[in-house]
């Protein structure tokens, strides 16, 4: 008894000591990062709800049924095993220990053993999945491509070891009880139900039972403690880190609005910034400690990577590899961060290992045209921690955030790095500068100017009410925010006319801002140009507040997101509806009656900023479904899993010359459903998908009759077929 106690204690102290030292080290590194943003309030209620949903019920994991259920079993297996582990630890000093009350019952032992076996079953599933989906077989298409493969296998092996050694110990314990203390054989009631432990009891030698009991007890604790140490040094950190990470995550999700720029936890005032304020993230420690926690929590599961439009079109961006790269860099740079600095804020020569000094000297984002930059199976190479093209390939579609089971905030991190590049360095894909200049001076990304903002309405068959500087009259129900595309892009102008006509048809009184409207600032903000965004937002909010706007209807998914979710940050609080929501309501209320049959197979594409970012999935489908004759179809990737058109994140305004074109990939997916109409609800998606479909039409692989159009235009065909031609002629 003494020997096993001393050995057990020694093992425990050593292993927990190592793990604790590692945890303290990570904590100290985290302290070198920025404090949390002042506006990130973690309210206990939503944190608890999130823990229950994401951790306890594994909500996001279960979206992928097979690996989800397997993970659920391992998670709950370990939760139940905790009891067994407690029993084992106390077994060090008290061989016949049983957990009070429940320990008396056979069913308790049964449950413990059942979950242990289910855990093993899950391990078998994981093994099969890992073999099937090995990067060796699937290459870039594998979600594990770029993950640490060896350590992942080791984790599976160790979990297996933890389970069987615990069961073996319990088996040995049963033997010991029965042989040495027959009078007490009934005492540990739970062991009667511990059927798997009994199997071990049956095969273990019946001699030297106490020796075997001690042996397996120490072995199981050794395996467990060794595993714990390994965990704190590996991607398996998530078993601890995910709990605080979920608690401190942005709620309801890190999608929709972007946060303003913070420095030292305070919002930066662009009118009068502090001299030393750093805008965005230029060094890894400019992330908040929640950022570091994100990096440490990543399980390398690759769910994000499997959905990423950039990755799936062979671009050098995988959200997983990006997060892993930031983690590796943070840890490699840690000695530098923790080292004592001299007065100039530098680490004295030789004060830290050379490798750490070299890592600290690396720019966070590499230069444009860096030939050595590569994102591959073994992570990232190149002059910067994150290659230039990796940073700029992101469309901010949010598919990664949507998928991540541990609530990592990829889009926020990417935009924060872009912010530094744009605001502090002036470094970004050059062609996007044209858009920024246009937005700044002309008020729209094309640079056409305010004077052209009403031309779209010239062929309307009714008088459009235009805001002229006085308060919006009371009889106006909605302010119609036409958006730059709706006002200026030829295809989107058709949508603007269709929506205006439908509203008029339904008897909805509405008004447009005309020349007083300008770009919402979405492309500037997604590019990281927060200053320009703030300027535009404040200017628009001033106009809207002066006009007394209360309810706004929008046709662009990006405008919708900005007006509804981001303008409150600058004092603009409105009730914003997307035109598809409003149209669905008008149809349901019988204020619009689709009369004409539209015999067409319609495939609907979910715009990222309408669907994932704003959860509007049903309304556009309701509108399409309400039209007699339509057959509404889905692409394989739909709703939450919709695949980006390639225009978001200001990518619309940048060249796309790496890999396959995203819009082509999506257009091909749509064409594979054999549609007559591909419908979307955002002008940028429509431009992108039109281009992709036109390409195939030119090549002769798609029917020339396939049309790409807005949901409202399909509805117009049914409600006012007589107007379709006059409103779709370009003006």
């Amino acid at each position, binding site marked *: 008894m003494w020997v096993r106690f001393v050995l057990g204690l020694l093992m425990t102290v050593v292993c927990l000591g190592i793990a604790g030292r590692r945890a303290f080290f990570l904590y100290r590194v985290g302290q070198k990062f920025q404090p949390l943003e002042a506006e990130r309030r973690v309210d206990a209620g939503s944190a608890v709800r999130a823990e229950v949903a994401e951790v306890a019920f594994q909500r996001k994991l279960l979206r992928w049924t097979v690996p989800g259920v397997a993970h659920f079993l391992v998670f709950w297996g370990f939760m139940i095993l905790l009891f067994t582990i407690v029993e084992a630890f106390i077994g060090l000093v008290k061989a016949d220990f049983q957990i009070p009350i429940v320990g008396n019952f056979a069913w308790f032992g049964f449950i413990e053993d059942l979950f242990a076996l289910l855990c093993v079953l899950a391990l078998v599933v994981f093994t099969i999945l890992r073999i099937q989906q090995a990067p060796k077989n699937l290459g870039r298409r594998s979600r594990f491509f770029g993950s640490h493969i060896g350590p992942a296998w080791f984790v599976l092996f160790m979990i297996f070891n933890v389970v069987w050694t615990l069961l073996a110990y319990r088996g040995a314990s049963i033997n010991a009880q029965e042989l040495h203390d027959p009078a007490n054989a009934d005492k540990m009631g739970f062991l009667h139900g511990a059927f798997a432990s009994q199997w071990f009891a049956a095969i273990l030698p019946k001699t030297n039972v106490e020796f075997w009991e001690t042996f397996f007890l120490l072995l199981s604790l050794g395996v467990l403690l060794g595993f714990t140490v390994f965990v704190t040094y590996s991607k398996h950190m998530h078993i601890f880190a995910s709990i605080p990470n979920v608690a401190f995550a942005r709620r309801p999700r890190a999608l929709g609005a972007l946060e303003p720029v913070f420095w030292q936890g305070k919002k930066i005032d662009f009118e009068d*910034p502090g001299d030393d304020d750093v805008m965005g993230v230029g060094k890894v420690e400019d992330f908040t400690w929640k950022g570091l926690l994100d990096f440490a929590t990543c399980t390398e599961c690759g769910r994000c990577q499997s959905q990423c439009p950039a990755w799936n079109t062979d671009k050098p961006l995988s959200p997983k590899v990006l997060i892993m790269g930031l983690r590796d860099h943070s840890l490699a740079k840690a000695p530098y961060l923790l080292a004592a600095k001299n007065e100039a804020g530098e680490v004295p020569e030789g004060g830290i290992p050379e490798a750490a000094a070299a890592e600290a000297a690396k720019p966070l984002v590499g230069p444009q045209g860096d030939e050595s930059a590569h994102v591959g199976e073994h992570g990232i190479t190149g002059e910067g921690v994150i290659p230039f093209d990796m940073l700029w390939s992101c469309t901010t579609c949010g598919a990664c955030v949507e998928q991540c089971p541990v609530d990592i905030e990829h889009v926020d991190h990417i935009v924060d790095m872009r912010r530094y590049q744009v*605001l*502090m*360095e*002036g470094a*970004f894909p050059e062609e996007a500068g044209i858009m920024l200049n246009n937005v700044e001076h*002309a008020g729209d990304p094309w640079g056409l100017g*305010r004077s*052209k903002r009403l031309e779209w309405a010239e062929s309307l068959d009714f008088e459009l009410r235009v805001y002229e500087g006085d308060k919006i009259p009371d009889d106006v129900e909605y302010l119609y925010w036409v958006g730059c595309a709706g006002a200026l892009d030829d295809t989107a102008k058709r949508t603007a006319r269709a929506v205006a006509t439908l509203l008029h048809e339904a008897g909805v009184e509405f008004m447009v801002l005309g020349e007083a409207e300008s770009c919402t600032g979405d492309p500037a903000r997604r590019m990281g140009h927060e200053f320009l965004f703030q300027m535009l937002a404040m200017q628009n909010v001033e106009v809207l507040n002066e006009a007394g706007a209360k309810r706004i209807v929008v046709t662009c998914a990006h405008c919708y997101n900005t007006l509804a979710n981001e303008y409150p940050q600058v004092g603009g609080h409105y009730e914003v509806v997307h035109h598809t929501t409003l149209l669905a309501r008008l149809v349901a209320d019988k204020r619009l009656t689709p009369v004409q049959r539209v015999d067409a197979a319609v495939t609907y594409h979910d715009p990222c900023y309408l669907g994932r970012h704003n959860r509007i999935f049903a309304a556009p489908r309701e509108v399409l479904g309400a039209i007699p004759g339509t057959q509404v179809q889905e692409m394989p990737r739909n709703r939450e899993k919709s695949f980006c058109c390639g225009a978001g994140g200001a990518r619309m305004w940048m060249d796309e010359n790496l890999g396959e074109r995203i819009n082509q990939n999506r257009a091909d997916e749509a064409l594979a459903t054999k549609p007559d109409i591909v419908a979307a609800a955002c002008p940028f998606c429509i431009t992108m998908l039109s281009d992709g479909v036109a390409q195939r039409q030119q090549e002769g692989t798609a029917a020339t009759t396939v049309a790409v159009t807005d949901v409202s235009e399909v509805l117009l065909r049914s409600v006012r077929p007589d107007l379709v031609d006059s409103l779709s002629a370009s003006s």
Partner: protein
Amino acid sequence: MKIVVLVKYVPEPTATWKFAPDLTVDRAGVEGRLSELDEYAVEQAAQLAEKGVASEVVFLTVGPAKAAEGLRKALAIGGDKAVHVLDDAIHGSCALSTSLVLAKALEKEGYDLVLAGMASTDAELSVVPSMVADRLGINQATFAGELSVDGGAVTIRRDSDVASEKVTAALPAIVSVTDQTGEARYPAFKAIMGAKKKPITTWSLADLGVDASAVGLGAASVRTVDVSPTPARTAGTIVTDDGEGAAQLAGFLADRGFI
């Protein structure tokens, strides 16, 4: 070597312009900006400073109070300081009197090389650099698509439809540059903040010794008689090809004297 860049704060070309009762553009009613064409000159000056060719870069503008914003934009791209000639009496000046004010300001400030854009995006006259050269009696080299400065002389490439000329002018000289010289950089926010700390000196006509009666609307060499909106575009002609399409197109062009 000291470079002075002439820049103009113009009404935003894509906006709707309104005209004041005196038929000048109502500057209060329209946003303004640093003329896009002048940004090329600003960029060239910034590059010459970065190459160590220029030791000092100064931006000079003549314009209303808000023209200082144009100077700030230029200072965000590069340069050391700026001069703003601001005087109510200048309102409505024509190119000739503007060139007088600029010449006087240049004399007062001192320069080795003067850079300017190829034209302003509002009046689009392209004559001011030549007028300034004449008033100062210095060399001029206009419409430079490329420029370099070497040992007391500036050399430019000047492209026309038929030839590409290489022209060299001894300093002091004035050079106007075209959009061929290369897009101006997009200033980072840090540079914009930095620009706020660079000095802008304001001079009045009196500071320059220019008599107010020599400039302004009254002294203008051209007079605006009337302002009316551009007539709306008329609908185009659509030719449907019924086998005769080519002939119809040719006919359309022939009618208008294109072929």
